[in-house]
């Protein structure tokens, strides 16, 4: 059987056991301001940050950014501007015309502007991708410095799926010219809200 053959070849061919290295996270720590760095990073990957004080400001902000949006799913409490109930959706096809998805981000990463979303935050996995525009609501205290800290936070993660999203979908496959908006969301707006 292939499994046994492969494992046998590996046992025969592998080198002598080598220890895993110790990882000293102090080597990667800086004293930079997390929120400031996060804002900078999101900008550099093509996303936009809107700082707000409360949920009302988020609603107003979305209205002014996308005044004509009709097909909206909101999964954020008190940002009750959704027009479609995700619970009624059974396949990605039904989300084909979706214009706005509003999702709560669990935490952001200062060094690269990524936000972690998982099965906890949305029930249909295609939601943050198939939507025309993605809106993430993130509490400003939920920002970690780098990817090491991010995985420390995820040490007890036990969902079936999760994703770091850093900016809107993009490509540079035509002569290295950057185009924002490839196969997934055309834009990413992050509402950074002071913890209430």
């Amino acid at each position, binding site marked *: 059987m292939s499994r046994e053959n492969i494992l046998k070849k590996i046992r025969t061919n592998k*080198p002598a056991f080598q220890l895993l290295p110790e990882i000293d996270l102090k080597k990667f720590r800086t004293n930079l301001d997390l929120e400031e760095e996060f804002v900078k*990073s999101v900008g550099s990957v093509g996303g936009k940050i809107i700082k707000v004080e409360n949920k009302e400001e988020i609603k107003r902000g979305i209205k002014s950014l996308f005044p004509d949006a009709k097909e909206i799913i909101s999964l954020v409490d008190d940002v009750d501007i959704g027009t479609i109930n995700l619970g009624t959706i059974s396949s990605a096809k039904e989300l084909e015309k979706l214009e706005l998805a509003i999702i709560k981000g669990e935490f952001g990463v200062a060094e690269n502007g990524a936000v972690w979303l998982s099965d906890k935050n949305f029930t249909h996995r295609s939601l943050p991708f*198939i939507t025309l525009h993605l809106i993430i609501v993130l509490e400003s205290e939920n920002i970690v410095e780098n990817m090491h800290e991010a995985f420390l936070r995820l040490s007890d993660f036990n969902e079936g799926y999760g*994703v770091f999203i850093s900016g809107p979908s993009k490509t540079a496959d035509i002569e290295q010219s950057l*185009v924002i908006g490839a196969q997934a969301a055309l834009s990413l707006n992050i509402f950074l809200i002071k913890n209430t």
Partner: protein
Amino acid sequence: MTGHPEAAEIFNRNEAHVNWHDQALWFVREKRDKASSQIKGWEELRQLASEIKAHTLSNLNEYLIQFEKEATKNNVNVHWAEDAIEHNKIVYEILQAHNMKRIVKSKSMLTEECGLNHYLEEKGIEVIDTDLGERIVQLAKEPPSHIVMPAIHKKREEIDQLFHLHLNTELSGGDEVYLTREARKHLRQKFLDADAAITGVNFGIAETGGFVVCTNEGNADMGVHSTKLHIACMGLEKLVPKFEHLGIFLRLLARSATGQPITTYSSYFKSPQQGDGMHIVIVDNGRSAQLGRSDFRSSLHCIRCGACMNTCPVYRRSGGYSYGSTIPGPIGSILSPGFDLQKYSSLPFASTLCGSCADVCPVKIDIHKQLYNWRQIITEKTHVSFSKKIIMKATGLVFSHPKIFQLSSKFAKGFLRTIPRSLVNNLSGKWTKQRELPETPGYTFAEWYKKNRQQDVIGKKR
């Protein structure tokens, strides 16, 4: 048989195109430099990544078993393939069992290596590559010329023509925004109509049985979440032991590849969405044999970032196709001879051994040393041209005898100045095809040194 020099010669016939290709890749190399210098502890990260990979290889059988056990617990079906043929068969049988005919695929160099598209198409299955660059080369009926930027060799006007021909777009002079939007419309339909999605794997995690797929376009996720079945194809060297190790590798990968701080999407798949199916095919195809070659073992550390290609003076000026292997460039030149020594015997010579590839490698593979080591084996085991053999023997003799060296350099300086240029070029083979030898000065280095520097050195010593 065509080797690298012959294929590179064809690429070099269009000098303007070569210069453009060279600069496009160097631009990416510079972005990598900027990104890597912006974070604290870059060198420590490379060292850790290298040591984690070395550790993983030293315990690989156990980690594969652990990965399989955990993945199975997560409701994922695990398959094992010894070679490309078995891999293709497994994928086909899964699709056939569900009667699935329309497939969307995100970038996977492994499926390129196995020739999966061709295999499935012959059986009447439609496979659409969904990364824009891959879709471009698929429409052109070409393989990728670079592992991260598959269509880096193509000019915008060519892409304009291709889309006009296949996707009925207007001719736009190669407007990248227009073409990308048109591709988006075309691929949206393919995603929504597809039965199943195939992806590669960037990292498999032994501890959890989950795996990570990285894209900028979101095409892997669009495919997987739009369909009922996900097949992930993974080379067996892709494992890392722990979930937290992703922190290290995700910091290195995109910075090394394109100079981005991270790819737009880094998706972690552990179990299928309710009601859907998920399969992982673990593929050997020569990797366990490479594990047994101690001089070349660390080539299995590779995380496929492509940094060695972007920096390589030979790759930049000869293009991905000149290598004739699925993985081109420096890393391809040390992986491919393990598959077929005769077929890829010219690749380890497609290098200046400058070592730039090893300097930028995020997992510290000593690529230039391995290129050198392959040369020793190839010279011994395969047919090397008579003229190369004689030249090497003569050079060895001259360099190991100082008296002969002095005499011959004195002779050479006169010789090179008096005989016709065309004869010199003929004698030096392909080296002078695209370049001229510099004018020879009227003195040897030893003579120059004696006159200009020796006094200084002796003076300082006193």
